[in-house]
């Protein structure tokens, strides 16, 4: 009886309180102001400086962001130094390295192909302290949480931004030792250089990771959380790696990104702040009322890489399997055409009749054996341990 009452009460509570109804919403309004220039990048001297230029689009635009091509982009120092960036395509402008120093302020000048000129405020070139460590914790329900730790002995940095790039190794459920040659309609050994069983996948951070130590007595960032790997998922199937980039920011740069974060990542609870207009430090010289999205910051870049082996988390359970059972494909050319040429099957290994000669190819659909179809590449990164 008590149990029943409890469940009824629990039901009420869930209905009422925690299962606040959240539904997809499509705005009936047509958004208007689009086509503003968006500038993302960080001026750095000890690594490649990269700026990505794009444009804002309509809310209902299908997520296709037009890159801003054929612009001229350059970094200017208040010591009259000029460092032009070169266009790499797709709106990306880079320069491998520049001799910058902390006593000079730098700014970014952009001339777009439509003849407009943009200039950022001159910003301090900040020295970013080194990352002390990238650490992690594991528990069975939440998975792995990754953290970054740093400190500035000079107590001068205070505002930090992190980005990361994760890479992990994984395999397809089944290994294909043979390959089918369509022109010859025959099955041959697959050379190791063409292996499609082991892949490496990359994922860059999609959130803004910001931290500050202004409330602390020392300039220390302890256990600033970055990504979280849900328990028993692919990233830790074999070996996982994360490369963390750390950038020092000015207070204004930090506030700009914090507002962007509030506006775009942390809305939705009852007591969240309302979104508000985002103002950066880049201005259109040609048309001063034109809005530009972006904040130019400058400083050194600090990086740190961490590896996590599956063996370090003994109870990580991730298995890959194929939904279809293996099919035996006959050796005759008609079977080969039917399965490998027409139905996208892939030969896995040779099949032998009991105690006898080979009688066919164990095969399965390509998606079961080609790891690349899960988004990775077969190229092993050069930093990857064996």
């Amino acid at each position, binding site marked *: 009886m008590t149990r029943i009452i409890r469940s009824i009460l629990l039901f009420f509570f869930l209905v009422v309180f925690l299962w606040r109804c959240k539904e997809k919403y499509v705005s009936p309004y047509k958004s208007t102001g689009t086509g503003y220039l968006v500038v993302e990048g960080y001026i750095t001297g000890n690594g490649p400086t990269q700026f990505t230029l794009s444009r804002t689009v309509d809310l209902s635009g299908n997520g296709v962001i037009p890159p801003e091509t054929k612009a001229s982009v350059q970094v200017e120092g208040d010591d009259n130094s000029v460092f032009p960036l070169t266009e790499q395509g797709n709106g990306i402008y880079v320069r491998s390295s520049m001799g910058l120093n902390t006593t000079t302020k730098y700014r970014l000048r952009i001339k777009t192909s439509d003849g407009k000129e943009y200039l950022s405020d001159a910003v301090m070139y900040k020295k970013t302290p080194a990352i002390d460590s990238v650490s992690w914790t594991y528990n069975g329900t939440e998975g792995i949480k990754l953290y970054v730790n740093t400190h500035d002995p000079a107590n001068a940095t205070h505002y930090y931004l992190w980005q990361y790039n994760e890479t992990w190794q994984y395999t397809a459920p089944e290994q294909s030792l043979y390959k089918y040659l369509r022109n010859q309609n025959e099955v041959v050994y697959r050379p190791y250089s063409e292996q499609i069983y082991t892949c490496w996948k990359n994922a860059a951070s999609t959130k803004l990771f910001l931290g500050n130590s202004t*409330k602390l007595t020392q300039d220390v960032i302890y256990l600033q959380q970055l990504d979280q790997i849900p328990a028993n998922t692919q990233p830790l199937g074999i070996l996982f790696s994360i490369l963390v980039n750390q950038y020092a920011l000015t207070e204004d740069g930090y506030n700009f990104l*914090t*507002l962007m974060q509030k506006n775009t990542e942390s809305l939705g609870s009852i007591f969240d702040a309302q979104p508000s207009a985002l103002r950066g430090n880049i201005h259109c010289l040609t048309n001063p009322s034109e809005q530009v999205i972006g904040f130019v910051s400058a400083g050194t870049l600090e990086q740190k890489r961490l590896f996590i082996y599956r063996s370090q988390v003994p109870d990580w359970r991730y298995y890959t399997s194929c939904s279809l059972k293996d099919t035996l494909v006959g050796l005759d050319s008609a079977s080969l055409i039917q399965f490998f040429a027409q139905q996208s099957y892939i030969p896995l290994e040779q099949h032998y009749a009991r105690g006898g000669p080979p009688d066919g190819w164990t095969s399965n659909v390509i998606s079961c054996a080609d790891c690349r179809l899960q988004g990775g590449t077969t190229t092993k990164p050069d930093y990857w341990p064996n």
Partner: protein
Amino acid sequence: MNRTIYYRSLIIACLLFAINRVHAQNDRQPLITVHFKDTSMAVILKEVELQSGHQFYYDTADLDTTRLSIQEDQQPLEKVLGEIFSGTDLSYFIDRQQHIFISKGEPVHEGLPADFFERTVVNRDTARTGVSTRDDLEEASKPQVATLENKLYVIGDKSTADLPGVINLAGFVRDAKTGEPVVGASIYIDKPRIGVASDQYGYYSISLPRGRHILNIQSIGMRDTRRLLLVYGDGKMNIDLQTQVLTLKKVTVSAEKASNIRRMEMGVQKIDIKTIKQVPVVFGEADVLRVVMTLPGVKTVGEASTGLNVRGGSADQNLVLFNDATIYNTAHFFGLFSAFNPEVVKDVELYKSSIPARFGGRLSSVLDISSREGNKKNITGSAGIGLLTSRLNIEGPLVKDKTSFILGGRTTYANWLLANLPDQYKHSRASFYDLNLNISHAMGKKDNLYFTGYLSQDHFNLNNDTTYGYGNRNISVKWKHIFNNKIYSVVAGGYDKYQYNISSTENPVNAYRLGFDINQLYFKAHFNYFLNANHTFEFGLSTLRYKLHPGSYQPEGKPSLVAPDVLQPEQALESALYLSDKYTISNALSVEGGIRYSLYNYLGPSVVNNYAPGQPYSTGTFIDSTRYGAGANIKTYGKPEFRLSARYILTENLSIKAGYNTQQQYIHALSNTTAMAPTDIWKLSDPHIKPQSGDQVSLGLYRNFKSNTIETSVEVYYKRIRNFLDYSSGAQLILNHHIETDVLNTQGKAYGVELLIKKLTGKFNGWFSYTYSRTLLRQDDPNAGEIINHGEYYPANYDKPHDVTFVGNYRFTHRFSISLNATYSTGRPITLPIGVFYYAGSYRTLYADRNAYRIPDYFRTDLSMNIDGNHKVHQLTHNSWTIGVYNLTGRKNPYSVYYVSEGGAVNGYKLSIFGSAIPYVNYNIRF
């Protein structure tokens, strides 16, 4: 019944005695000397009885209040008696045995009417059969009431009867059963038409011409009564009203219930707890604030908010008073419950237009919540059990008829429920409690003392290690003193505190504890002076000392590296002097004029930042700072505030009213969230932050129908708000040492039309309201660095132009009623993205103009059934059930619409707080 028979038999016995012993009347008349001044008739008669040797027979009820002065030397009995009874409706008869029978109206005659014995027999028969129908029971209680109602009260010294002019009658109206004051009772005479209402203490003061009157007393929920008066001079009369427990037969339709026609004020709404309890609310917990939200002109941003937006004002522009104590946070449990225990609340009065001069300090409205005084006769109590909350309330006399207390408490038991939740919510906690203690004490006839203590506390933590807690603490003492019939004073003092804290220990290095509090100490003295029938003055003064700790950030635990960061405390003094006069020019026209001068001093110790003159306040324009010592007067603001209103009665059922008032506000809540959040901070006006000011002009038309059972009104208003504080984009409001750089001065305007149709009596009662209103803000401060929406008017968060509300209750029987509540409103404005861009690995939304769009419209219907147990008066406990459904149609009313970047993509969501129909059940007992 039995008593009646007893009295009747007694009278009959006396009469028979008189008839049987017939003697000749004594020839020798004794001479009598009496010298009395303002003495009760009983005393005088006693003296006459002694001197004359006659014996008097009379019903004490006929003359117990009659007081008179008499000077007679050596006069015959009959002359003295003639003198005593002249000017009264009493007459006397002397029989031969020297018995004197005093009676009302017709004198007693010797002999019996022809049908005398028959009538007696009939009466006896009824008594014997002892039929106890309910009507009989009612009948049984009648004689006493009838006696009071038919008794003539003689007030004053009749020697002054011939003087011209009017006299004053004052006293308390009380509930006969519990001894609690009856507020808002109408006390009036018909010819000429003079009426007043009892005030919050049940006190009334009425000016009457000398002579005979029928004084009518009416109050909703109480049985109508009247008193027969013969007034010679000033006097006192307390009136006890009977509760209308069961009216089986009739609905009294009365002229004076037309208080909305005759009342001076406009834009005032009063709801008593009985009505509040009928309105269905979520979880079935009667909620004072939710019911206030159904009134025209009152809006809220959403279901998880108890913040009221009255006539376009923001939530912090309401002065919420609970027995004179200011309540800063009126929400419990994320705003799902209000902070007021319905068992303790007596009624709620909302002033949204004519704010009396005695109130000040907030721009939009005053919500005056008064608590009950507690039963002065017996210990009683009540308890209620709901799904998430329980409440208990005990009241009774400490000293019978003199001192009473009421103690109420509420708590939640949601914690164990949360512990049963799936793992991911398991560590969530949410709880609240509140406690009320009120003591009222009558010290003699002229003094009353009231003590109020209030304590509320909320704790919550939704599955992370950040714990939130907030609470109100209030103590007030009030002393009411009646100098004489015409003047009384109320002196009150108290201490209010609101505090919140947030702490997190998840990360040992960053473990912190954030605290904020407001403390205020106040003193008020209020005087009410009924000069004559035409003028009633109110005047007084008040002073309020603020001390705010706007933020302290402290390390929590040893490993914490958090640097203590404590914002300097703020202190200020807000004082006011006021005077108002209610002037009745004629029966039809009355005006009220009030002036309140408010004076504000921002006091040291403090360090005040200085900025380059003529430049926006920003860290870039900061020059230096000035240090002020303790008690130094840093900045003074002061301004007269005007409160004017007029009423003109066109016909008996139609009146027109107009009002104009101005307000000042020196304390501001800073919030960049839509709902009033528990972490909102309050800021005092200082050299950089000017006081908010506002003025409002309003006009209303009031018309009653069907013998005043249906009240209708239309009110229009236009309001201006100056120096309203808004936040700048990306403002940092918590722990900001230079908050002036993150807020903007905004100007606002609001206007609207409010229509109300109300029926408060009968089987079917309730109200319907429609409001059209707009609230627009504009930020054009040249000193601000940022111009919101290009300096043009934009709608405020709570700008919901159309609002239709229906609240109805239908009583099928005395034990079963159904309440329905339906509300529709335009969706509130929101800021929607105007575009999308790609940044930091994700698509992200771009925002521009504030509040340029609206969320979908809001519609909700609630239904509840109130089932009472049997109504026998004498039983141990009375119980009742409330069963209901909140959001009957299950409509997913959006609370907000928002876009969020998740996994690199932008997704739009519509969030509803209650996305389905919510059933509830509540069990209440009274003992």
